[in-house]
């Protein structure tokens, strides 16, 4: 493996002719990293009829868009995607390859890492470029990828590096980075990559794709009202929904509430669930386990209501009220309605 500086790549997930929001967030961050080391940023699009998405990717900061386009690639399946992306990496030798830590990103990235026998860091909550000194061997590495991950249930943050092998690879939880601004004046090149399918590529056949109904969408939510064990049950969540309706907010939940069966897993916020970054996060009856807190730290303002005066959530809240949500929340709803009329 060589240690020469290569470009930065972002694998771009998409569905229904739309680029995943998480891929755009990642492009925004990758643009900043690329500028820091004077590297090129490339976006990788694999699918069928995806070329039309290139200009949007360029407007979000890509210098180059690689297109891997074939009828048989219309649905994501592991084998051909991993083989083709692996081949592309071998030919073009990027220094860094980034993926969203969504279901497909977490399916694809480790396949590539093993294929190229390189390191991969999962579920990063931050990325940077910096220097690393390996004291054991006395080696110094300049401008490598610093990959920050919560470890041991979020009790500590670990910075992981892959000094020797290339590319350096990481997956990043959706919602971690801000959406970049679109700049339609940006110019970039579109590079098609020839596709030849092989026998092993059709090992997995997609029989059916079923859209889930009633899914939550925290992307771009301005306010999130979330409940935990202290909400007490479905009646409590109905109260939170009322508050959410008044505020035009999304409803979320902690692991305790999901495990109690009061609300479905789709609503879970935190490690193992969704990362949210609203302007205002209102935590109701949530004690504040680290794995929950790790999913909300990017919120601009955190408001917490909990009847336990020692709830750890208060340590990470901007404003907090010690009280029962059944007393406080109805009053908040009443007052907001009053002030807004």
């Amino acid at each position, binding site marked *: 493996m060589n240690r020469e500086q290569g470009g930065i790549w972002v694998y771009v997930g998409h569905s229904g002719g739309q680029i995943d929001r998480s891929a755009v967030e990642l492009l925004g961050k990758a643009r900043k990293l690329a500028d820091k080391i004077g590297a090129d940023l490339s976006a990788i699009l694999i699918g069928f009829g995806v070329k039309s998405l290139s200009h949007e990717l360029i407007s979000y900061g890509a210098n180059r868009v690689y297109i891997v386009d074939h009828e048989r690639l219309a649905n994501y399946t*592991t084998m051909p995607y991993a083989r083709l992306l692996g081949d592309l990496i071998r030919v073009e030798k990027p220094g860094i390859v980034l993926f969203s830590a*969504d*279901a*497909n990103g*977490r399916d694809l*990235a*480790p*396949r590539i*890492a*093993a*294929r190229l*026998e390189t*390191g*991969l860091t*999962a*579920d990063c909550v931050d990325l940077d470029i910096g220097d*690393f000194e390996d004291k054991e061997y006395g080696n110094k590495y300049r401008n490598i990828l610093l990959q920050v991950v*919560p470890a*041991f*249930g979020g*009790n*500590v*943050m*670990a*910075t*992981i*590096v*892959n000094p020797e*092998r290339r590319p350096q690879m990481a997956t990043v939880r959706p919602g971690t980075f801000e959406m970049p601004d679109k700049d339609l004046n940006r110019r970039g090149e579109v590079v098609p990559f020839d596709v030849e399918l092989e026998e*092993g590529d059709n090992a*997995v056949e*997609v029989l*059916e*794709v*079923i859209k*889930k109904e009633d*899914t939550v969408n925290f992307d771009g939510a301005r306010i999130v009202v979330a409940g935990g064990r202290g909400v007490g049950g479905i009646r409590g969540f109905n109260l939170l929904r009322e508050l959410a*309706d*008044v*505020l035009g907010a999304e409803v979320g939940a902690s692991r305790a509430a999901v495990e109690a069966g009061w609300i479905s897993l789709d609503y879970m916020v935190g*490690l193992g669930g969704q990362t949210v970054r609203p*302007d*205002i996060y209102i935590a109701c009856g949530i004690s504040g386990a680290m794995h929950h807190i790790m999913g909300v730290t990017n919120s601009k*303002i955190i*408001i917490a209501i909990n009847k336990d005066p020692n709830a750890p959530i*208060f*340590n990470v*809240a*901007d*404003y*907090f*009220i010690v009280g029962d949500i059944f*007393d*406080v929340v109805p*009053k*908040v709803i009443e*007052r*907001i309605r009053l*002030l*807004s009329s």
Partner: protein
Amino acid sequence: MIDVDVVVLLKQVPDPKEYIRIREDGTLDREKARSIINPCDRSALGAAIEAKEKYGAKITAISMGPLKAEDALREALAMGADEAILISDRRLRGSDTLATSYVLHRAISKLERYDLILCGVETTDGGTGQVGPEVAEYLGIPQITCVEEFKIEGESIEARRTLESKCERLKVRLPTLLTISNGVYLPRNTTFSGIMKAVKGRVQTWSTAFIEADENKVGSAGSPTKIMKVEKVTFHRKRCAIGGADVEAVTANLLDKLVENGISLVEHGNE
């Protein structure tokens, strides 16, 4: 009866409900913590046992870890696994997911035959979800991740995979690897015959030499990723307590305080 050879990959993890100690070098002190079978791997074992009942499968449980991980394998035997293999070697210390996957694939390659490999989607301690796909890549076999349900039909598997906003029904031919989601296959209780087997049955311990692993690909030397530093998490928040004589006053104070700081909570549509 179809008769398939199923391999279940298990990891022994510290009980997440207990306090964990972190060494100065950032690695986990596994000696003191109480250990359990990783919950998703338990689900994978449950799936293997169901397959055994339905199709007549032979189950081989494999784990890589310290010698005390033998407990997890004994539990697997008691639940219904037929064979148990522990890969334990001082040289494996400090293995990251790539090195771990390399070792697991070497051990699987030692088996006479395998049709289906099952493991959990991710572990509660590492949480990377990388080992399953990396093992599949090393073995050169297809994979389906995040499986909630599957059935074996002749030489192939039909599985339901759950993603963020959709489900896929997929068909894959054997041999293949599936990662099983947590809680979808109920963990089995130990059975009397299982306990007898666990008592009598031997957990085989394999070394890196036995699996013919390249020593440059295992342990910290074989791990591309390094921990540069570990820091305590710090949060920069106002931590402003809102009090008041009664609930009425508290809510008023909250909204006032928010307004003072330029934050408005207003009725949707009236912004």
